[in-house]
């Protein structure tokens, strides 16, 4: 008899884990709360570090799931209502009244983007030309990044660490992907509008992964992106609808102001809105420091929840890049397989 696994969340982690589990002969149900698979990946245009089109990656995964339709069942527009322990396995009740008897549950509920409005002084939602990185990505999809009045932007500033490493919003952690995304998007702006001047306002540049440092180098040397070490303090609109931004050039120890046409806020990751609810229903532990789910440990049990039969993968256990998320998903599948065959 095949084992049954319920995967909560149809983003990259959920899809990749499902594919991996199906490949091992298990029956997988993906429970997705929206009407389609893909998660944040579906909103993205191109992916760091080598500008791969997000859509292609997503399509490959979707095709994989379609090929494995005997093993993977996708249930969209559904959420987990309750999970009860049974003699053998777990009884998962969905919001559409469907009940699944599962041998294991994998939580892949991912992350939410930080709500940039919370940093009032950055003027998101108030000034027309303040965008988030996700908004910009949406515009890149259409190959057109224009100011609110239709002008081509001459000066664009990127603000790193918006909603990350910020005690004032209770996000003391680094979201890992914003630095490299900011560098990627800065280069993409220069590709689109070579005449534009681009400024990246960073606190530390965390170019930790493979090819990242090269991207940074290319941004500096090839694209001439200006890197300013300093955090944005405030934004205001000028008489002609541009944005005056203030920061300190901390490497010079002098305050600095620039008037830009467009300001992009690199919003970080935060635990998804369902975290609390899921933690109650599945008896999961949430970290007090970053509000993401806790795993049993960070090493050999990095995909195990504290409750038996429940596993975790992807950005619901802390910020992860897409490659890391996919690896984590495969590793979760391996953990589940071992658990089921033990």
């Amino acid at each position, binding site marked *: 008899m095949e084992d049954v696994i319920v995967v909560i969340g149809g983003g990259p982690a959920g899809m990749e884990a499902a594919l991996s589990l199906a490949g091992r002969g298990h029956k997988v149900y993906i429970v997705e709360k929206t009407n389609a698979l893909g998660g944040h990946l579906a909103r993205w245009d191109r992916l760091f570090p080598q500008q791969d089109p997000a859509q292609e990656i997503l399509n490959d995964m979707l095709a994989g799931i379609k090929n494995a339709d005997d093993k993977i069942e996708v249930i969209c527009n559904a959420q987990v209502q309750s999970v009860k322990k049974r003699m053998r396995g777990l009884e998962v009740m969905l919001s559409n009244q469907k009940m699944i008897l599962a041998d294991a549950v994998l939580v892949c509920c991912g992350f939410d983007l930080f709500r940039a*409005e919370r940093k*009032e*002084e950055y*003027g*998101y*939602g*108030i*000034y*027309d030309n303040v965008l988030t990185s996700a908004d910009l990505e949406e515009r890149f999809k259409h190959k057109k990044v224009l100011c609110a009045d239709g002008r081509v932007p001459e000066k664009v500033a990127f603000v790193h660490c918006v909603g990350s490493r910020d005690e004032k919003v209770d996000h003391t952690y680094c979201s890992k992907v914003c630095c490299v995304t900011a560098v990627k998007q800065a280069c993409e702006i220069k590709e689109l509008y070579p005449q534009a001047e681009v400024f990246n306002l960073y606190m530390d540049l965390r170019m930790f992964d493979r090819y990242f440092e090269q991207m940074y180098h290319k941004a500096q040397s090839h694209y001439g992106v200006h890197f300013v070490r300093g955090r944005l303090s*405030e934004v*205001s*609109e*000028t*008489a*002609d609808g541009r944005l*005056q931004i203030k920061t300190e050039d901390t490497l010079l120890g002098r305050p600095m102001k620039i008037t830009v046409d467009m300001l992009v806020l690199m919003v970080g990751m935060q635990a998804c809105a369902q975290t609390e609810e899921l933690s109650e229903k599945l008896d999961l532990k949430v970290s007090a420091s970053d509000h993401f789910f806790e795993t049993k440990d960070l090493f050999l049990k990095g995909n195990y929840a504290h409750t038996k039969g429940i596993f975790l993968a992807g950005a619901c256990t802390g910020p992860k890049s897409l490659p890391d998320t996919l690896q984590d998903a495969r590793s979760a599948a391996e953990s589940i397989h071992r658990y089921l065959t033990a």
Partner: protein
Amino acid sequence: MKLEGKRLIWKDYQKEIPDDKYFYVRSCIRQNFFPASEHHFLKIMREDLGKDVYETEHHTTCGGIGYHCDVIQLETIMSIVARQFALMTEAGYKNYAVSCITSFGLYTEIIHTWQTFPEILEKTRRQLKEATGREFEIPEHVAHASDIIFKLRHEIAAKAKYKLINQKTGKPLKVVEHIGCHYAKMFPHKGVGGAEYPYVLAGMVEAWGGEVVDYPERRHCCGFGFRQYFVKSNRGYSLSNTHKKFESMEPFKPDMIITNCPGCPYFLDRWQYVIAESEGKTYGENGHGIPVFTYEEVAGLVMGYDPWDLGLQVHQIAVEPLLDKMGIPYDPEAKYKGLEGKDLGKPELPQNICCC
């Protein structure tokens, strides 16, 4: 600019403002700088709006100037503040209305300290009792006087004779609002609209027909800064601050400035003269400055009070261009006449800035 965005933020910074029964404390310096402002606050509140506002000649300074100049200890100041509250308690009031934002900030800070550290409150009670024999209650509501005008802005608008509208063009006047540092920057939730996009004055301007100018250095200090002004060798910093603000608002061509604080209108007004005389630069139309008002003065103008009764002749920057725009009649001959037509004498006119 998306106004809805600001409204969303304003929603987060609502405070409860009672609309009646206030114990009122005046500012140390406003009576000299803008002598009719507090008078007209009381007059509008009592006579036009029929509110109960109590005032006693026994209240003193709150100690804020000494506090911000680092010359009086906080403990001493707490006793002074406690005495003010004792006066309120004795008069049977629970709502405390403050004319000065520095006082307002200080009261807020001290109440917050007492709430956080009850032992300090007890100590203050003891000290006040020992020193004066008085006892006090912490006010249920501390409102800045502008909070109250904000709360009553629509009532005032309903009774208004004039609007913040350019009578010649029919367009709303462009108004720079300046709330002052001590109003909300320390305790954003104690100010209407918070500190980033404060609404207290903006609400009045909106209600009375004007349009608020959001310019880049809006958040910046007026330049008063206590130590920066009081020590002459630092005064250049004070001036530079003000200069920075005017340079920033200049492209928006504001018709007027409305202010919240005792010091701000003074410095925004007088430093325009200093900038003009030392640098030759003016920011208003035709060599004029940008007229600066307290919110009480604006309320008074809107309500139809005589500009000279509102004390506008003591402003350095001439208010006449604005009166003309709003269509408010005035008697130029009466500008420097005091009570009962007493001649106040005409001031010497500056060289670079047009003051009449």
